[in-house]
């Protein structure tokens, strides 16, 4: 293996991280406006202070105990394009190190804890029409979950089940996103003809792709929703990556 191929994976991960930070800067500048009103959830609120004006002097902002240095206030620049908020690279790095790292850690944890199930699910995803089926199943699952929750809302006894339903859906979506990350990593390896690498490294690159998609200005919310829905659908279709899949044979004896 040549030296250049040896550095291919670290280089790819670095490029994906840099793209993520650049997209996060743009996403913060675009602000939490339609069609991405939830942009704050991933990249955090845009800081409205400008260089030279301390945050404490701006109404509505305050120094919190998790940010004692206030370095971010020194790295806020006016947007070159009118109608957009200030460019805040520090906030973007912070979003990458919190949301991006959190997403990558959860994805890697899912793969470490359930390797056999993840393999089964990724194989299903890589199969013919696997992505379309996972996406379709995710859409149907969202409808099913919303309908079930609304039904449960009108009963006092089963109202307490609602958080459990949401929790299971969240776990399923996270497991699915972990599998999608691994599938993306494997796809990158094949398409870019990268050398073989530890699957967790490939999954890390895949999770960075998911983060990059999620911080695309305006479209990020749709991309991340699609990834989460496909993850949910994949987890449901494969019964959390179970090798046997769905079978009612045991009920028919």
């Amino acid at each position, binding site marked *: 293996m040549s030296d250049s191929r040896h550095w291919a994976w670290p280089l790819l991960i670095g490029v994906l991280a840099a793209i993520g930070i650049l997209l996060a800067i743009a996403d913060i500048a675009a602000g939490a406006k339609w069609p991405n009103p939830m942009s704050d959830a991933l990249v955090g609120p845009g800081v409205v202070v400008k260089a030279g004006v301390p945050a404490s002097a701006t109404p509505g902002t305050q120094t919190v105990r998790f940010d004692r240095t206030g370095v971010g206030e020194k790295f806020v620049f006016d947007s070159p394009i009118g109608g957009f908020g200030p460019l805040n690279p520090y906030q973007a790095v912070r979003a990458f190190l919190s949301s991006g790292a959190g997403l990558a850690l959860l994805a890697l944890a899912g793969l470490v804890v359930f390797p056999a199930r993840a393999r089964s699910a*990724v*194989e*299903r*995803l*890589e*199969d*013919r*029409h*696997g992505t379309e*089926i996972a996406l*379709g*199943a995710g859409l*149907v*699952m969202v*409808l*099913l979950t919303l*309908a*079930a*929750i*609304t*039904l449960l*809302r*009108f*009963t*006092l006894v089963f*109202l*307490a089940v*609602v*958080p459990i339903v949401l929790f299971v859906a969240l776990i399923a979506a996270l497991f699915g996103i972990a599998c999608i990350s691994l599938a993306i990593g494997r796809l990158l390896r094949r398409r870019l003809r990268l050398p073989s690498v530890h699957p967790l490294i490939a999954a890390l690159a895949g999770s960075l792709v998911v983060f990059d998609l999620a911080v695309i200005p305006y479209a990020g919310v749709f991309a991340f929703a699609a990834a989460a829905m496909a993850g949910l*659908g994949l987890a*449901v*279709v494969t019964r959390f990556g179970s*090798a*046997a*899949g*769905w*079978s009612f044979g045991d009920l*028919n004896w």
Partner: protein
Amino acid sequence: MTASESNSLACSRVRVLLEPYSDGALAREDRQQYDALRAHLAGCSDCRLQHEQAISLPFRLRALSSPPPPDSLVAGVMRTIASTRLATRRAWTLLVPEAALATFILWYLSGLEGITSVASGIVGDLLGLAGWSSGSGSLPSIPHADVLLLLALIALTAIAGYHLSILIRLTPAGRTGSGARRAASE
């Protein structure tokens, strides 16, 4: 001197004992008869031929009794070999009633405002339930739902469940297709 004469066991008796001899049961249960049968086989070509046939795999497979097939065998095979085109079409067409029901429910609940109200109601009632369980409040009063709304929700749940079952059947479980081929090549 014939083989039968050279051994204490008769050929007819040997044929009966060949099965436990081949299985190893005779060696465990009656060592003396086992030794006698071995000696007989060494000297009798007919019985040796019978023994070779008895221990051959095809012969033993033919001797196995076939278990009765399960009742669901034909249905299972037909389901497996059936074209997935019909299921794929059904998977797409089911989106229509789902979308119609979702739109109806959305309209019935006064749009996004109603959905938000349902969501905030769930959170409020859950908090009320938690407060009641800790003894700091009374049980929340659950609103009465319209029967038409409940029917629409149940219909949507049922259709979505059926839709999921079709999507699950679209790709067979196990390692098939390109994923398996790729895995095999790796």
